[in-house]
């Protein structure tokens, strides 16, 4: 069997071009191996060979996402490789994002098996782990010695079309894919075994890991709140009486956009909550308890805030997927910005 062809992607640092001062380096391609490709090539052995290395500066890639990605794809496609490897990026944030982005693009747009590797806390990991195989590495290049065999082991499986094992077996990050399998013991026994181990303080592996949510850091403080236009957004389900958009009481599939111009206060005559899962009596009796229109109108009159935006956005948080909530917010955040809203108060139940 002839050696399979691999194209490798690295940043300007690992190409020996330079550090931060050279991070605006434009994409280029070199024949053969460069930098970590030396180690990867040795580990790939007789099975495969890195025939070309694509190099791009981290800053350049992240500031010219579309152009850089297109340029990299063109370079990769020219070599028609059997496999694409990016990184390892360890904990270098922009390198991780670039490696994740090119790995996804090569795999989805060129249909070439692709894999990358980085540290679990690299921002690129959260962004791309559900799209592509990301092999777990240590947080610095000092762990290159362990990263290379882990990366090439998964790469070779992909090359040979072998079945990829679980994230634990093949040392990559969980992609959120569920696969059925036959367990030797029934669920109740496995659960009790786990509980006993837990009580004894022994190690056990959960079969239902909790999702890891991203962290959202607050924006800088509003400079002058007395001039700011304040918007209201709620996941507490406050809707005009009758719930005109029929927002579901659980696992909401939509959000509503409602006008409150002319409302000094919400009442049980005008508004109600669509939210299930909690006793709605107090929210229905006085919807301002969830969506504080009354207090904000007072502050508006007192000149403590600039103004209250005349549109509020509402959905039901009960059982609603984080991904849906994120999608809704991405949509209406653009409207809020376009409407000149300076700050938003989000309320829940």
């Amino acid at each position, binding site marked *: 069997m002839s050696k399979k062809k691999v194209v490798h992607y690295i940043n300007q*640092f*690992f190409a*020996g071009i*330079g*550090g931060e001062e050279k991070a605006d380096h434009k994409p280029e391609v070199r024949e053969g191996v460069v*930098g*970590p*490709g*030396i*180690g990867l090539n040795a580990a790939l052995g007789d099975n495969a060979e890195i025939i070309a290395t694509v190099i791009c500066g981290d800053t350049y890639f992240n500031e010219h996402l579309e152009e850089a990605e297109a340029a990299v794809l063109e370079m990769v496609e020219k070599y028609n490789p059997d496999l694409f490897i990016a990184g390892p990026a360890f904990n270098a944030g922009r390198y991780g994002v670039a490696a994740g982005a090119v790995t996804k693009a090569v795999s989805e747009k060129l249909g070439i098996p692709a894999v990358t590797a980085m540290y679990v806390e690299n921002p690129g990991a959260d962004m791309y782990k559900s799209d592509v195989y990301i092999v777990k590495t240590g947080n610095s*290049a*000092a762990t*290159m*010695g362990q990263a290379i065999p882990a990366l090439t082991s998964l790469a070779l499986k992909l090359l040979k079309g072998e079945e990829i094992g679980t994230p634990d077996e093949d040392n990559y990050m969980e992609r959120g894919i569920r696969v059925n399998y036959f367990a030797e013991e029934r669920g109740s026994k496995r659960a009790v075994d786990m509980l006993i181990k837990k009580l004894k303080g022994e190690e056990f592996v959960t079969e239902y890991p909790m999702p890891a949510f991203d962290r959202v850091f607050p924006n800088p403080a509003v400079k002058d709140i007395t001039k700011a236009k304040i918007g209201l957004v709620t996941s507490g389900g406050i809707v005009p009486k009758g719930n005109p958009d029929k927002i579901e009481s659980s696992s909401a599939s939509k959000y509503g956009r409602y006008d409150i111009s002319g409302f000094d206060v919400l009442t049980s005559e005008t508004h109600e909550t669509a939210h299930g899962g909690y006793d709605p009596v107090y929210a229905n009796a006085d919807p301002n308890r969830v969506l504080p229109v009354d207090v904000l109108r007072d502050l508006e009159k007192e000149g403590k805030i600039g103004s209250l935006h005349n549109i509020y956005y509402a959905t039901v948080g009960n059982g609603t997927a984080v991904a849906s909530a994120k999608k809704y917010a991405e949509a209406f955040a653009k409207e809020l910005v376009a409407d000149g809203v300076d700050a938003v108060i989000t309320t829940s139940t």
Partner: protein
Amino acid sequence: MDLENQQRVKDIAEKYPAEDIVVILGGAEAQSAKLMGDTVTTGDPTFAGPLAGVQLGLTAYHAVEPQFKDAVDEDVYDDQIGMMEMVLDVDEIIAAMNEVRG
């Protein structure tokens, strides 16, 4: 080892025979000493610098190792390195350097 220092070592190694060169390292941890030691013997293990894939095979010692300490003036050593010798994990560094020298 940063890229500039790798280049300096490489330049020196091209100018003089390997047996005439000893590299004295000063890293504060065993792990970094090992990385630097590996860099000047078997090549940059991070594959980022000029010594990636370059096996210079130089001899390397850490400044807290007895081989170096015994070879230099005791007063100067105490003055320049004595303080660091007290705070560093010397045994771990020596073990790492022995690994480097195989």
